[in-house]
């Protein structure tokens, strides 16, 4: 390990935890150790969620030629506006104090449980993400498996919400959500398989470590800089957009069609919980993308290593989220049949090919000299040619038209 791993900033959060823990009697120390970790993750990502909402609103506003929320300051200081940065807290107060309406015909228990479950499971995924060097809440051998298992459970909650609301829009949304989430679970997981193949482990911590080191000091060995890694990353991003119900795959809560989809009958705090879970899910998936493809907490160049690893992780995470916001401000929504077609006829075959591609990469690891170039060319061809062919068939029959004028 490079000396940067011993820098004071790098160790500070961990040492603070250990310092706090030592005040407790021996038998309670392990409990305190984990509780502090949980509280820290909740606090950091709770705040991160709050500022993601304001960032999304402000960025979207800028994309749309308006200003976005810029009024809310602090309540006891007149004239202080803080660029509207306290808006999420005002939103929180609003949603918390709103009346909670449960439809008379709803299944009360399921209606109540759905938001709780969705938040619980989306938070659980944070347990296996390495936020920095030695900063991982739980070190699991099968971390990836655990992440996808917990992530998939949120889909059940969305279906529960749609079904128990006893609202037709909610029901339609629930059907859509199931179709969409099941379709995209497959490319999401398949896009990650090449990494498991190359890194030879399911542990997120080990996967980040395999992406360490640099060629001549500034070319990082991140997986995204290999042909199969780039393809996997793009498939991962598309599938992650769909998994987190973001535009252009926001079908379950398609505002212009289904009002608010599965959230139609939710108000007040329960709605806020769904909202929160959605952002937690997005953050967790982005964090996983960063971990698997973008080198996790690793710095991009040697000389930038003095910046602590958790800051690098946060920077990359913010980059991913800004990208997702940008996409939301730009794209149109697909229809459900087009959505599933995209998954099954395009993303899944591509992801499967990519697995073969990664296998080739592993087999040709010892190639050297000019063969190295052949290795890159073959690997690119294996993924780009099917991409072009399948992409053509996907948009076949659709083209801009020319029009005639009446004489």
């Amino acid at each position: 390990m490079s000396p940067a791993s011993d820098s004071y900033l790098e160790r500070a959060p961990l040492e603070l935890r250990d310092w706090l823990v030592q005040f407790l009697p021996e038998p309670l120390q392990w409990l305190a150790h984990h509780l502090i970790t949980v509280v820290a993750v909740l606090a950091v990502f709770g705040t991160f969620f709050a500022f993601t909402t304001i960032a999304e609103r402000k960025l979207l506003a800028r994309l749309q030629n308006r200003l976005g929320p810029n009024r809310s300051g602090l309540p006891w200081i007149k004239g202080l506006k803080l660029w509207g940065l306290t808006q999420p807290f005002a939103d929180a107060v609003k949603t918390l104090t709103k009346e909670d309406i449960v439809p008379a015909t709803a299944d009360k228990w399921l209606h109540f449980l759905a938001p709780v479950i969705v938040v619980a499971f989306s938070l659980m995924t944070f347990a296996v993400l390495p936020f920095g060097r030695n900063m991982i809440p739980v070190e699991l051998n099968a971390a990836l498996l655990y992440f996808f298992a917990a992530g998939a459970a949120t889909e059940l909650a969305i279906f529960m919400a749609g079904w128990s609301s006893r609202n037709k829009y909610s029901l339609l949304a629930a059907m859509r959500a199931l179709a969409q989430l099941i379709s995209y679970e497959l490319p999401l997981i398949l896009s990650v398989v090449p990494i498991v193949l190359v890194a030879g482990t399911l542990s997120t911590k080990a996967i980040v470590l395999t992406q360490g080191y640099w060629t001549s000091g500034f070319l990082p060995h991140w997986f995204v800089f290999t042909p199969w890694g780039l393809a996997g990353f793009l498939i991962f991003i598309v599938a992650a957009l769909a998994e987190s119900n973001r535009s252009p795959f926001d079908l379950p809560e398609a505002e212009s069609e289904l009002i608010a989809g599965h959230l139609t009958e939710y108000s007040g705090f329960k709605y806020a919980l769904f909202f929160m879970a959605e952002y937690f899910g997005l953050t967790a998936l982005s964090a996983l993308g960063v971990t698997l493809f973008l080198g996790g907490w690793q710095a991009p160049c040697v000389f930038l290593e003095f910046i602590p690893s958790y800051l690098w992780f946060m920077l990359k995470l913010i980059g991913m989220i800004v990208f997702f916001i940008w996409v939301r401000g730009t794209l149109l929504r697909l229809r459900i049949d087009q959505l599933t077609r995209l998954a099954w006829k395009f993303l899944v075959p591509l992801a499967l090919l990519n697995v073969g591609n990664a296998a080739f990469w592993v087999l040709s690891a010892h190639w050297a000299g000019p063969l190295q170039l052949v290795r890159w060319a073959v690997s690119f061809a294996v993924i780009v040619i099917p991409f072009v062919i399948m992409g053509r068939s996907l948009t076949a029959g659709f083209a801009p038209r020319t029009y005639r004028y009446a004489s």
Partner: protein
Amino acid sequence: MSTSQVSGFNTQVSAPGPFGGPAGPTVRAVHDQFHGDLLEVSMGPQHPSTHGVFRMVVTLDGEQIVKLKPVFGYLHRNHEKIAENTSYLGSMPYTDRLDYLCSMSTNWAYALAVEKLDGQPVPDRAQYLRIIMAELTRLLNHSCLVGFLFNDLGTSFTPLLYAFREREKILDLFESLSGSRMMCNYQRFGGCRVDPSPEWLEAARRLAENYPRFLDEYEAMLTGNEIMLARTQGIGRLNSTHAINAGLTGPVLRASGVDYDVRKIDGYGVYPRFDFRVPLGAHGDTYDRYMMRILEMRESVKILSQAFRDLPAGPIMDPKAKLRGFRPKAGEAYGRIESPKGELGFYLISDGSPNPYRYRVRPPSLINLTLLEEMCLGHTVADAVVILGSIDIVLGEVDR
């Protein structure tokens, strides 16, 4: 598929759910073992995409529409009867509220009917001003429409707000001229109400000159988008026979390939002096209807530049026109224009008294809406919303 077995949710609570509460939506009356039940959804009157208080009762097989019943009348204001009890001039501001996006052209249609009824001449300058206002209205209506169409297609407001930016510029012009952004009340029988200043004309000319830049930008960003193409091409097809039989007019009819533009056919106002083309579609689908609007906007810009070039000096009101205590000769008249939504007509019968004996509006929005089911059958809910958006309705005009 028999509709007798169509059912919504069973309102009676049957078996309890897993946690003791009532079970979710009960699926009963399976009409076919394979396809399951049909679902009746009432979309509207409170719905984000029905463009006002419009209601569609759709019967769904999965997400596919097997039946669609448009329900309107939520905004009925008794417009025609009120106008029959008001003086001719008194209902002029009321026509603003018909198609509240395009008050300038609605005013013109009404003024045209009254002028026909009384045989009133209109000075040249007023004719040109009317065309300027009508074409600016067409620009703002079509920009709004494509913006809203993209909203229905699922963008989160971005194209709409860029369209609104342009619309706002036109509304600023209207406000500075007539005193109101949307309820302009600008036309009069025998002319117009206010003569625009040279500065106003210069500002309007510049706006029209810059408009193609907005259109180019808009088209570059959106028209070729793959999702846009896949969502609109082949969706909501309407063949020309059906469209003609139902009396459809405007861009919706022209998208089906029928050459029918009242500006060309009637040549009302001084339109024959202008050089412009009428774009025609070939497929009659949502994409064609969208493109008709874009191409018409480009033609409107041409008309505007010619109008600003040729605008003559002179009075804006016929000196003999009498607005207050106006009593036309007994008789009847039908004045029609090509409003942005289609053929907008006013049918008036006068018995010589100060208020019309019969006052009837031919609302293009309502008549274009009649084939909604035809267009939507076999498509999904998502498409129905887009098809409705592509028809371009304003509920103020549909319900009157």
